[in-house]
Each structure stands twice: as C-alpha cells, then as structure tokens.
C-alpha cells in the first residue's frame, strides 16, 4: 500500500528543486467521492495530492495538451512536466515514447504501484452504496477497501468494486518511471480477455444485435476521443474542419469532397467511427478504460479495444506499451504472420 505522504514528499522535492515545471496528479474535492486531476506549480501546494482507489484517470492524456501548448509558445519552458502514473498509465507513456510523440526528458514520471489493488469503478460503487453517498474511499490492508459514507464506514472486498480493467490488469506497477512508490509485486490477472472470449462465442447475429443496440445509443460527443491518451492526432478523420466550406468553394469541390464519416449520429456512421477508432488503437491501446468511463451512454468501448489487443497478442505476439523501442504493430511484420484467411 502506497502512503500518500510519500507521494506528497516526492512532489514537493521535485518542485522545490525546480526539476519540473508543474506536476499533474490527483486531488479530491471534499464534496466529491472521486478524485479529480490536479495541476500543481508550487511546492507548498503538493499537500493536496492524494493517492486512493478513486484515482481512476489516465493523466497521460494531459501531455498532448502540454505538447500543443509548447508548440504555440515562442520560448517554451524546457523543463519536464511531472506526472503521477499507475501501471497502465506507464504503458501509455511507453507508447507515446515509441511513437516519438514525447521525449523521455520531457517528462518526470512519479510511478505508483497499484500492488494488489487497483482503482474502483464509480458505477459499481454507486450500485453497492444504493443511494448513499461515499465521502472517501481508501485502501485497507489486504484486499479490502474502506468506504466512508455519511452513515459510517463500510468495508468491502476490493474485488467487488474494482474496475473491470483492474481485475484483468497485466501490468499493475509502472514499467517506466523516475521514482517508484510501492512494490513491484507481479500479480497474475484473474481472467485475461475473459469478456472478449465470452463475446466471441456468440453467433454472428447475436453479436450484431448487441453492437447495433449499443452503437445506436452513441451521440457522437467524442468524449472517448477526448479522454484517450492515444488520440492525439491534430486532425481526426471524423472532423470535417479540414473540409471547411467557404464562400469560394465551388460546387465541384463540394461534390468531390471526401467525407469518410458523416457527422450525423446515425448507426452506420457511429459504427464506422468506432471501428476506425478501434483500428487506430490496435496495438496502441493500453486498456486504461478511460473511454468506457467517459462514455455518457455507457457503450462498452473497452470490449472493442480489448478485442484488438487480444488479436494483436494472439496473431502477432504484440503487446502495446511494454517496450518503447519496439516498432508499432502495423508498421512491422513477421514472415510467419498468419495468412490462412487469404485465398
């Protein structure tokens, strides 16, 4: 169990020594039960940093904002950005390093090991509490969590409210870091790709009925894209911004404009959007589960990304974010890649 005091001290030290520009971590507002991202510039502010099972966010996402900001500024500050990362977040860092989106010296990584636990699923917690409001959730010795509500404390086995992805977690401690808090206790996942395998066993029409119902709900708010640490493209294929129609756009230009995906949230467009996202995240998705958490209409997006992760592993022996030196999934091949599906 990582003591939050250690985290505060590390953050304070880094800020005091001027090692970092600012630190991205977690804080908790007293009225909320879940943690929120915090940006800390002054050493004395590091007191507000926390570490508990509600620190669900993948803060790596904020690095793409930082990169854009740097690009805009005339004389950008060259000091690195401090960032608090969990195991899954460190894999995201690795993918960004692999793609040369960030340089190793641009970030100062404060790694926290989840050890035997993980982070909770807010929806599961709400269900468990049945209308009561959680004031605080914290780790307890062993695999139990303490939930403080207005009516007193509740003890729950971690398994019951941990996020699905944490139960399937393969990397429970950071693999790239500058300082590491907690132990590198390797944990065997209870069930790897269990939900994907279960879904794979369904028939074609059952699969289609499921996805039809799910993707019809999509309102195309792009929360999944905004929250994803890997969705950093300057120009996304679903945005029509690059096809802006101005006064001097001719009718011919309008007619010949390639629109891969229409903006309207109808089933056919939603499917293409989500498939494109799944393909683009194949071999890059680190299963941080943020897309599913951010989705306002509860589409099981993790299932889609997990499927790609599973295929990458089974067909090509590829796992995202374990090594920042490996070539990316679709930019390399092996002679023995499967081709039994090709005529």
């Amino acid at each position: 169990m990582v003591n939050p005091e250690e985290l505060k001290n590390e953050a304070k030290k880094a800020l005091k020594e001027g090692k970092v520009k600012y630190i991205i971590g977690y804080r908790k507002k007293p009225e909320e039960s879940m943690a929120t991202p915090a940006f800390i510039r002054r050493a004395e502010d590091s007191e507000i940093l926390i570490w508990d099972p509600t620190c669900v966010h993948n803060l790596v996402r904020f690095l793409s904002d930082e990169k854009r900001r740097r690009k805009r500024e005339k004389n950008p500050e060259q000091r690195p950005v401090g960032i608090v990362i969990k195991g899954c977040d460190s894999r995201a860092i690795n993918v960004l390093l692999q793609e040369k989106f960030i340089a190793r010296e641009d970030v100062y990584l404060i790694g926290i090991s989840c050890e035997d636990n993980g982070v909770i699923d807010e929806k599961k917690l709400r269900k468990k509490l049945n209308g009561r409001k959680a004031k605080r959730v914290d780790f307890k010795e062993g695999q139990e969590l303490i939930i403080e509500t207005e009516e007193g404390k509740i003890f729950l086995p971690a398994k019951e409210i941990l996020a699905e992805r944490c139960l399937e977690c393969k990397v429970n401690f950071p693999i790239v870091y500058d300082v590491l808090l907690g132990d590198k206790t390797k944990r065997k996942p209870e069930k790897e790709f269990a939900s994907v395998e279960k879904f794979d066993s369904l028939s074609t029409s059952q699969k289609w009925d499921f996805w039809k119902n799910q993707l019809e709900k999509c309102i195309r708010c792009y929360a999944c894209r905004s929250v994803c640490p890997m969705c950093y493209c300057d120009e996304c294929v679903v945005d029509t911004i690059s096809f802006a129609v101005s006064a001097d756009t001719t009718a011919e230009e309008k007619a010949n404009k390639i629109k891969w995906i229409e903006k309207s949230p109808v089933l056919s467009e939603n499917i293409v959007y989500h498939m494109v996202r799944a393909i683009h995240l194949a071999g890059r998705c680190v299963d941080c589960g943020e897309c599913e958490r951010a989705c306002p209409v509860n589409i099981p997006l993790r299932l889609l990304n997990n499927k790609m992760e599973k295929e990458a592993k089974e067909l090509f022996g590829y796992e995202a974010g374990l090594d920042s030196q490996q070539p990316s999934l679709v930019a390399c091949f092996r002679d023995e890649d499967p081709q039994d599906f090709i005529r």
Partner: protein
Amino acid sequence: MAFLCKWCSSAGSDLAGVSRMEYPPNAVPITVMCSGSVSPLYIFNAFKRGADGVLVSGCHPGDCHYIKGNYYARRRIALVKKLLEFIGLEPQRFQMSWVSAAEGLKYTQIIKDFVKEIKPLGPQTKLRREK
C-alpha cells in the same frame, strides 16, 4: 467491391478479361497502387455505401512491387477482418486473396466463389447508410 493492386491482381483480372474467361459481373474492380495502401477506411466506407462484399487482393508474399507492402496489408487486413466479424458482419463478406499477374484463372475462381458465398446472405444492410 474488389480492391486490386496495380502490379499483380489488377493485371491478373486483366488477363482473365483478355483471355475471355467468364466470371460473374458482380465485382466492381478498383485499382490501387498496392494492397498495403488500402486503408481500413476504404473498406468500412465500401460497406457503408452498400457493398455486399469487399475483396482486397494483392501480390503473393515476396512478389510485392514495393517489396513489403503486402506484408503490411496482411497484418492490417487480418485485424480489420477480425473487427468486422466481432461487430457481427458475416465473415464471408470480407475476404483477401493473393492473385499474381499470371493467375487470371485464379481470379475468376475467387470471384465465382465469393459471389457464390455471399449470394445466399442477401443484400448487406447492416453497415449500409440509410438514405
């Protein structure tokens, strides 16, 4: 909808044509420079515009004009195929083949088989955009 690479499969289909081989007229050929240049978006969009089946065809491994384009295609298309099946599209609707410039006969056979396999499935309405 058949995406044929310029150097092998397209030439293969041409050979089938000039040799007066008979095959179903259902395939709409689109010549691309390399099977590796077929973006998954092309495939999704073909289905969205109502294609009943999509075929991607390239050179045999080792024969790629660009040395390794078809190896990249093999990887990417495998992922796309898995994804389309996962979403609930019939696996027969999306296929890949290796057809060299000398294999006119193989090309006609592939189209014949393809058409035979997807005819019983009826029109593809799952991914089609409603007008």
